């Protein structure tokens, strides 16, 4: 089936029963993590046609014709998306395993709402479980990224 990942077109044989997570990882997109394989932890989150979903409970065949974005596609090679920079600047990354999923959830949020409140950010990140850092710094990171992005857009 045909689909795109990070703006690259793919035409691959896909197993009827495989998950989008398994497909993406076997194509080499290791930034999409397998934390629970049960739809609960959010580490496998990717954007499908702009919507953040957990890829472990998304059937690979359902991705036919869809545009997928993984954490590796948030910024061109060598560069950092404002969210990625902000997560580093606020110390929101410890072991980093939940980070790709959080970045994906946050990326969708800022696309829909360039100035989200703290409550909205917290509600958005609810599906991304983090054991190391918790949520104070990730929330700060999303606010920082949003502010920087608004500055760039207004300026």
């Amino acid at each position, binding site marked *: 089936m045909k689909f795109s990942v990070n703006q690259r077109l793919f035409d691959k044989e896909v197993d009827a029963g495989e998950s989008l997570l398994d497909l993406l990882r076997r194509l080499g997109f290791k930034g999409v993590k397998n934390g629970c394989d049960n739809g609960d932890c959010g580490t496998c989150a990717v954007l499908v046609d702009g919507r953040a979903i957990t890829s472990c409970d998304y059937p690979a065949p359902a991705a036919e014709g869809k545009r997928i974005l993984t954490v590796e596609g948030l910024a061109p090679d060598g560069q950092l998306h404002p969210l990625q920079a902000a997560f580093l600047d606020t110390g929101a990354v410890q072991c*980093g395993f939940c980070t790709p999923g959080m*970045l994906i959830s946050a990326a969708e949020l800022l696309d829909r709402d360039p100035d989200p409140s703290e409550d909205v950010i917290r509600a958005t990140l609810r599906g991304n479980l983090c054991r190391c850092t918790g949520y104070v710094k990730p929330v700060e990171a999303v606010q920082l990224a949003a502010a920087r992005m608004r500055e760039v857009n207004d300026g």
Partner: protein
Amino acid sequence: MADAFNVVGRSERRVDGKALVTGRPVFAGDLELPGMLHIAVLGSPHAHARIMGIRTDEAESLDGVALVLTHANTPTVRYTTAGQGHPEPSPYDTRMFDEKVRFVGVLA
């Protein structure tokens, strides 16, 4: 006062941060080495039990199975699951494979 220092009093991006936020394959599960074997785990279905015997012949005869590891063919090296740092004061009481299983899902 902070201006007198280059490092103290300043925030630093962690040295492995960029790799983590860009999803580089830096975790053990991300590694792909040529000819590497893949592990399939048989977890104990029992919460508290003693293994009286394990028959590995059927698994070993399957196509693609390189080896089957159990308590019978692995060293009885004990380690600690605590891991605060060497020399570790916590008891070295855990074996990777044990004849006694202590929770559902533990390596059998």
